[in-house]
């Protein structure tokens, strides 16, 4: 791999020990990927600030001690604690102390404490064609697919190294060649109502992710009305599979036509049937219809301002059953915006719990005896049973809220999916 004189100097320690460590990691990654050279990045989003054990903390503190400082605008992903409501997360003892130290270390390195998995919902997001280094699988998928920015799958250790060096190996999804669709998915025609909800998009993402692995899929026949729908699709596809870039033909910026998405290639086509959609819908749930409900989890990925505003009147008219908590996760910046607009009251009603800086499936927030949770997030439904040991029901926002009122799981296929 060719390195510029500046890059060689950084590797040799002339920009300090932390930058040298960062460059060493990037060179190893570049050599493994067969990169010819590095490319400058415009921004970074750091996933490493979520605590997974001592090694992550040792690395971050080594970088701080080595004079590390990010070279590009850098946002921080969700962490293990809600710093506005410290009592909400039941991490204890050494783990809690180390999780907090990890957050401090990433702020000391120059990361902006946005603590959100959806940095694309904040001002200053990258433009079309921008080279960036983002971590967090849903953010990676959104940056590549919806914004047309270019990022590989960064994450623990590699994301902060890219931010400290201000560059990454020119490989993978940073190059045009790797961004071509390798698989095509055709969808059946659905009733118009199906396209009004986010759930369809989460379901399509789930099915496409399962069938794509790490390949780039192009989806045909999917009208899209909002970024939130694409957010749901990408988050699901990056959970059931390793999708880092998807195209929706006629919708996303690199896919005005199928030929554009495929870049001259002729990838194989998979037709998703109504039966596939039903199977996907059913397999995202483990909880039985009518089971006693403990919690509803909304906002994975973090809710956008539009989603939050739409939720306000729903919450104000909701009478939540005893023993049920409705968790709503978002970025602290958006929670502050809600407060400015006088809308935060809705999230302080009995049975409602706003969560910022973190998420309900990565850190102990739910009541320890919570056994059954309902969500409208395919990503949450995919990870929570394993992470938290709960039963989960994936459903529409309407069914989530209706279940919260009844205190029981309403597990139903939506009307457009009933066969």
């Amino acid at each position, binding site marked *: 791999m060719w390195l510029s004189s500046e890059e060689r100097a950084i590797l040799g320690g002339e920009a300090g020990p932390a930058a040298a*460590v960062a460059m060493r990691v990037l060179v190893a990654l570049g050599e493994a990927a067969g990169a010819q050279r590095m490319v400058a990045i415009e921004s970074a989003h750091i996933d490493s600030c979520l605590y997974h054990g001592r090694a992550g903390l*040792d690395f971050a503190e080594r970088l701080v001690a080595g004079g590390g400082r990010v070279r590009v605008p850098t946002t921080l992903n969700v962490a293990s604690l809600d710093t506005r409501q410290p009592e909400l997360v039941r991490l204890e003892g050494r783990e809690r102390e180390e999780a907090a130290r990890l957050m401090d270390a990433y702020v000391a390195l120059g990361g902006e404490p946005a603590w959100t998995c959806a940095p694309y919902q904040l001002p200053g997001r990258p433009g079309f064609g921008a080279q960036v280094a983002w971590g967090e699988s849903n953010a990676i998928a959104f940056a590549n697919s919806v914004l047309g920015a270019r990022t590989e799958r960064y994450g623990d250790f590699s994301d902060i190294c890219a931010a400290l060096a201000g560059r990454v190996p020119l490989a993978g999804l940073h190059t045009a060649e790797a961004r071509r669709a390798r698989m095509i998915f055709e969808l059946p025609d659905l009733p118009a109502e199906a396209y009004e909800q986010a759930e369809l998009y989460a379901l399509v993402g789930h099915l496409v992710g399962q069938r794509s692995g790490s390949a780039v899929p192009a989806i045909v026949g999917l009208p899209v009305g909002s970024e939130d729908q694409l957010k749901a699709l990408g988050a699901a596809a990056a959970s059931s599979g390793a999708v880092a870039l998807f195209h929706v033909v006629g919708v996303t910026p690199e896919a005005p036509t199928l030929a554009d998405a495929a870049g001259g290639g002729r990838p194989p086509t998979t037709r998703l049937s109504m039966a596939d959609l039903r199977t996907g819908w059913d397999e995202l749930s483990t909880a039985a219809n009518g089971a006693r409900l403990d919690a509803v989890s909304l906002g994975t990925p973090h809710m956008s301002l539009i989603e939050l505003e739409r939720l306000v009147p729903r919450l104000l008219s909701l009478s939540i059953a005893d023993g049920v908590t409705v968790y709503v996760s978002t970025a602290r910046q958006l929670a502050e915006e809600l407060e400015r607009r006088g809308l935060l009251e809705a999230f302080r009603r009995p049975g409602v719990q706003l969560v910022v800086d973190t998420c309900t499936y990565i850190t102990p927030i739910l009541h320890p005896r919570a056994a059954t949770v309902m969500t409208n997030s395919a990503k949450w439904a995919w990870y929570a049973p394993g992470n938290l040991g709960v039963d989960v029901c994936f459903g529409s926002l309407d069914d989530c809220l209706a279940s919260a009122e009844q205190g029981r799981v309403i597990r139903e296929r939506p009307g457009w999916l009933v066969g």
Partner: protein
Amino acid sequence: MSDRAGWSAEGRPLLAGAAEGPLLVLDQPLSMWGGLDPLSGRVIDVHHPQHGEVLAGRMLALPAGRGSSSSSSVLAEALRLGNGPRALLLAAPDGILLVGSLVAEMLYEISCPVLLLTASDYRRLGSGMHARVDLRHRLHVRPLT
């Protein structure tokens, strides 16, 4: 050389080093995050065919990593605790596992070399063999004695 007598092959070093030990070949890709318990060194992904196997102290062959980039942290943590594999033998390059291994080396001077094998060499690997990687990036495999 026949497999019975042992064989050797050259790999591409993603992270150089020497290591040896009993071989464990995973039948499917494994996400270390949610798949490996760093405290015990065991495979804890209940959907994985080798659920319950111990990675600690083994030469670990896996076709590829899978899933979350948090696997880098989990691998580094397992290595820190002495519960990681001795080396990784891969059939496809994997930046996530490579970075986990490299960070453990930089922080703790714990070596876990990462060697990329050709598809045909990879297919010759089987659990119940002994494997050794040398500093010239050669893999030597023989039956366990």
